[in-house]
Each structure stands twice: as structure tokens, then as C-alpha cells.
């Protein structure tokens, strides 16, 4: 059974097709990255998974059950647009969101103080939310998301707007939850975060899947054309080679990008004849590069 199943899901807003026949299966117990440029339909898809908006066509199931069922109580969701009741106290906010997720008073009595301890806000439990600093606010938001001890956590652009300390905290939490066997789905347009954390990745663009699989699978399908070189003498001649597209200096090394279809082995043969080679490394393609290649550079941001 999959944690999330999307079958041919479509959603339009007026004339705009936000999601166009999306089919994605998220296995249980993995960290799944939902990648794509801004406006690709990520948020719309996540909202449909949470039954905040309904798809025009297609089926969405969580743990085999329809999204609009009580199964939502087993899910934690942190939207991209975040906010909490400013006038409520820290503990009351956690209790409220926990109770909406179906937690009993007894569970709340146990979980709320535990989470406040875990995010270092125990001393502020009686403060109003509006009195918290931005960083504390972010931590509280995250605690409110997972207060119900969810089996599936869905995070929409979780790293955007976080300070570095909280980014580290979030990474640790994601790691912990993965070890505990929970499923985590998060969307991002920041590729290196996905590269670092995800077991599976789906790249969507204009509401449809562009590529889908494990990081290794995706990499395998996209061999790198970049070679990192260090030569003993000047490498000026490299630019004149027919299969070299560009040469970028990188400290003592240089990054040589080959033309499409060229074999790095050809470069190595040529080099051996013309210079002494200290380092020859075929670079693993970064997700960023794969993205740029698949979607076109205009939409992708890194960092």
C-alpha cells in the first residue's frame, strides 16, 4: 500500500490548467521530493492531497483511503503560507491544532509539553504567539504540523524563509521521522535540499510529471557532460577541440563541458596525447543540471 496515490489528477482554475494528468505513487517510509519551478502546480497538488481543494478529475488516496476521509487525521501538513493565531498562547495553539486532528485530551496533555520541550519553547508556553520571535514562530509552526504524531508529513516549501538554525533543525527532524518509518513528502524548488534529503524525486512542470524515480535513477538517465580537469600546463588548447562546448576555470582546476553526444573518453584520449593530466573526474550531474536540461534554465533557481 502506498502512502499517497495520485491517479491522473487534473485541476483547472478558470482557463489555467494547474495540474494536468498527474500520476504519482509515494511509497511508505520514504522521503519524497516534489520538485518543480514556481507555478509548476506543486502547491495545488499538495492542497488536493490534503483535500483543501478538490481535483476536477482523477483519484487521490491516502493509505488506500479517499483524501476526504478521517485518514487526514494521520497526516500532518505545513502549508507554504504559514500562520498561527497571534492572540492565542503557545500551548493553546498546539492543543487546538492537535484537537482538530482528533487527539484526545489525554494525548494532548502528553504531547504538547513534550513538543514544547523538543523545540525549546517550554519556557514560553504561556506567552502569546505574537510575542515570539520569527525563529520561534517557525518552530512552533512545525510542532503544530506534527503534533498529532502523523504517519505522513506533507511540507510545502518547508525551507523557504527559515533561518539557518531552523533549517538544520528541520533537516534533523525529517531525518528522525524517516528513521521512525514515517513518510515525508515535501515540495521545493531548491534542488540541493532535495538532493540531500530525498529517496525519491518527482519533477513536475506545467502540472505534469517530467521525471520520476530515485535520485540514482534520475542521474543514470542523465549522464554528465562536465569533466573536472587539472593539467600540469596551460589548457588553452581545450577550447579549440571540436567536442568541447565550454571551459570554465574553477580554481586550479577547470570545468570542461562537452558538446551533446560527445564521449568523455575522447577527451581523455586527446589529453593524454597533449598534456600531463593530474585530475580527470567525470562530474555527477546535479539535480540542478538535470532540471535545467529538462525544463529550461529560466524557471529554476538554486539556493
Amino acid at each position: 500500500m502506498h502512502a499517497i496515490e495520485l491517479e491522473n489528477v487534473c485541476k483547472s482554475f478558470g482557463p489555467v490548467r494547474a495540474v494536468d494528468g498527474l500520476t504519482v505513487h509515494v511509497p511508505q517510509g520514504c522521503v519524497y521530493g516534489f520538485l518543480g519551478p514556481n507555478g509548476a502546480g506543486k502547491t495545488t497538488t499538495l492542497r488536493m492531497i490534503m483535500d483543501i481543494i478538490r481535483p476536477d478529475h482523477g483519484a487521490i488516496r491516502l493509505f488506500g483511503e479517499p483524501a476526504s476521509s478521517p485518514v487526514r487525521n494521520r497526516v500532518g501538513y505545513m502549508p507554504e503560507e504559514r500562520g498561527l493565531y497571534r492572540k492565542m498562547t503557545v500551548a493553546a495553539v498546539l492543543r487546538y491544532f492537535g484537537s482538530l486532528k482528533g487527539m484526545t485530551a489525554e494525548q494532548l496533555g502528553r504531547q504538547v509539553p513534550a513538543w514544547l520541550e523538543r523545540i525549546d519553547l517550554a519556557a514560553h508556553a504561556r506567552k502569546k504567539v505574537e510575542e515570539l520571535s520569527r525563529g520561534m514562530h517557525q518552530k512552533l509552526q512545525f510542532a503544530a504540523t506534527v503534533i498529532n504524531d502523523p504517519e505522513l508529513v506533507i511540507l510545502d516549501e518547508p525551507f523557504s524563509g527559515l533561518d539557518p538554525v531552523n533549517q538544520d533543525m528541520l533537516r534533523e527532524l525529517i531525518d528522525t521521522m524517516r528513521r521512525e518509518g514515517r513518510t515525508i513528502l515535501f515540495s521545493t524548488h531548491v534542488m540541493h535540499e532535495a538532493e540531500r534529503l530525498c529517496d525519491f524525486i518527482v519533477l513536475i512542470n506545467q502540472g505534469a510529471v517530467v521525471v520520476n524515480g530515485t535520485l540514482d535513477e534520475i542521474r543514470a538517465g542523465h549522464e554528465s557532460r562536465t569533466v573536472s580537469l587539472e593539467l600540469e600546463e596551460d589548457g588553452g588548447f581545450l577550447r579549440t577541440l571540436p567536442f568541447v562546448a565550454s571551459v570554465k576555470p574553477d580554481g586550479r582546476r577547470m570545468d570542461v563541458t562537452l558538446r551533446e553526444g560527445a564521449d568523455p573518453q575522447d577527451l581523455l584520449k586527446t589529453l593524454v596525447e597533449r598534456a600531463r593530466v593530474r585530475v580527470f573526474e567525470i562530474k555527477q550531474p546535479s539535480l540542478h543540471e538535470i532540471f535545467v536540461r529538462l525544463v529550461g534554465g529560466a524557471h529554476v533557481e538554486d539556493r
Partner: protein
Amino acid sequence: MWKIGKVAQREFLDTVKTKTFLLSLLFIPVLVVAIILLSRKMIESETGPRPPVRVGVTSSSEEMSTRIAGAFAAHNESHPQSPLALRPVPADGNEPSPPETGKEKLRQGSLDVYVVLEGDLEGKDGTLYFYTYKTKASQLDALGTVERVLRDAVIDRRYQACGIDRAVFQEIQNVPIRRIELGPEQGREKEQSRGQQAVRMMVPFAFMYLIFIGIVGMGQHMISSIIEEKNSRIIEMLLSAISPFELMAGKILGLAGVGLAVMVLWGVAAYGAATRQGIAIDIGADLLVYGLLYYILGFVLFSALLAGVGSVCNTIKETQSLMMPIMMVFIIPMIAWPVLARDPNGDLARVLSYVPPATPMIMVLRLASSPDIWWGEIALSFLVLAVGVLVAIWAAAKIFRTGILMYGKRPGPREVLRWLRER
């Protein structure tokens, strides 16, 4: 369903706990009490005598002048706080044109009012002329006194001229009247003062006003609560746990509870205050039950409309233009209440009874003013109201679901209609 309860509970507690709510809860009773106390105080505090009102009088009759002087003296003796100063102005030779000297004194400010007795007042003819110049607002009531004193002096003189003893005449005129309302059983008769009759007029209004405050006042909280959740982006967190309908229903229930609490509090306070003052108010239990039902239905209808309005707006300001037409329907009964109270079975009252947003207020007003309203009318009004409530909830739920997630530009009516057609 229990999630609706959770939302309602939070909404109730959060509204009740805010300072603005507590202030508004106390504000109106405090204001009413303050006005009563202050006006009483004002009357009491006029201990120091006011500066006398200087009254110039021109009278051609010697007898009349004496009588006026006597009347002024009598007034000053019985009302030492607001004395009148008599300044006779001798008539100049060329009658009947009013003496210009008096008018000139008035303009110069040495007189506050100038009175000319013209014609044969003793012989049931002639006129009293009251001249004023740039009257001070503080003297307006004193002018009334001057008029009364002078008129009384003239009447007194006429009695004398006709040879009638005024005391005898007053005895003849004196016919005591007592108004007694019978209770349902023997021995429960209640004497009614004039004030009591005013109370009978006011009770329906008070009831309607309570309904109005309970519905419209709470509506403001509804709008601000939705706008807050929208602006602080809590809404998506909420909707990941509960459905938009549950959220809306919870809000409506929670605020209806607040409204009910306010109404009960004020109602009990008003009843208590009235009873303490010795004004008997009888309210039938059936009126309370009807009032409760009408209030709840009316509140649900109104706040469903507001939930729809609030969900498509981003600021309180934006909601105001959309609120106007809705508010109008509620203000009509407030403006028309004297007509409605006098004629609770008239055409206007009947028609307005079936305009759903106004139904609760109108029906409560009618029921409180006249106990004999055909049950069919009550049943029909409930039916119309219930249909209105269902339509409002249906439309509001659709608009709410889509509107609540929209930021930026407010959607136009055509777009809202499209949402209504969506499944």
C-alpha cells in the same frame, strides 16, 4: 461533527476573552445607566440659581401689568433656581405699533426676551408677542417658562374678568382616571401608570433591539475572525484538518453562542433594572422560546452571508461595501419600528415578515406587541426563514470553500457565480 464543536469552542472563548468584546459588552449598559444618572444629576446639580432671564414686558393695561408682576413674583418664589426678572417697558404714545425701545434694548442685550401684550387680552382677544434676539441655547427652556407664566397670567385675568372663581373651575375639571390591566385570574389586577404604557411600547422594541445587537453585533466578530484567519494564513492549516464547512459551521455556532450570552446578560440586566424601578414587564415564556428560535435562525442566516462575504475579501475595509446591502435589510425594521409596533398586523409588517434576513426582528417585534398572531403566520415565517438559512448556507459554503484560499484581487460577481455552479 465534533470538530465543529472544537472550532465553536475556540471561537467562543477567543471572542469572549478579547478586551474589545468585554468593553462592548459593558459599553451599552454603562452608557444607558450613565445617561440616566447624568441627566438626574444635571437636574439636581442646578443648585446655584441661574442668572435671571430678563423679560421686558409692555402692557397697555394697568390691571394686566399688576397681575403679571404678581405671576413673576409667584414663579420666582416657587422656582428660586430659575428666576425671571421683570423689566416693564412703558408703551410709547403711538400705539398699536410695538414699541421700538423694547426691541432696541433686546438688540443691545439688556433684555433676553421682550413681550408685548397687544389688543384686548382681557376680553378674550388680542395677542402675546414674544420677541427674541440671538437667543442662547441655554435659555430656550426658560423662554418656555416665560410663555407659560405670561399665558397663565392672562388666563387668570380672564377668569377674574368673567367673574369665575378659578379654584371652582379646576374642581369641576378634575376627573381622576386610573388604568387597570386585568390579570388572567382574579386578584391579579395591575394598575398601570402612563410610564407603564410607554413600557408596553418599548418592550417589543427592546426585544427587537436585542435580536439586532445579537445578530449584527456578532456579525462584526464573524467578519474580523475570518479576515484574521485569512490574513495570518492560518486558514490552510485549518483546512488540512477540517473541511471548510466544518470551519464555517463552527464559527457560526461559536459566535451564536456569544451572541446568545450577550443577549441573555443584557436582557436579564434590563429586566432586573426595570423591576427595581418598579416597572412591571411581563414576557410570556412562548415569546422567549420564539425569540430564541428566531434569533438562532436569523443569526445562522446572517453569519452565513457574512462568512461568504468575509471569505472573498482580504481586509475589513473591502467587506464594507459588500455589507451595505445586507445591513440595509436589518436597519429597515429598526427605522420602521414605531409603525410596526402600532400596527403589528399591518401590510408592512406582514410583508417584511417574509423577507428572510428581516424575519426574526420583525416577527419578534410583532409577537411582543400583539399576542394574537395567527399560528399559521408564525409557521410560515419559520418556513421562509429556514429555507433562507439553507440557501444561505449552501451558497456561503461554496463561496467560502474557494474564496477563503484566494488572496489578492477580490473576485467579481461573475466569478462568484461560477463557484456556485461548481459541484
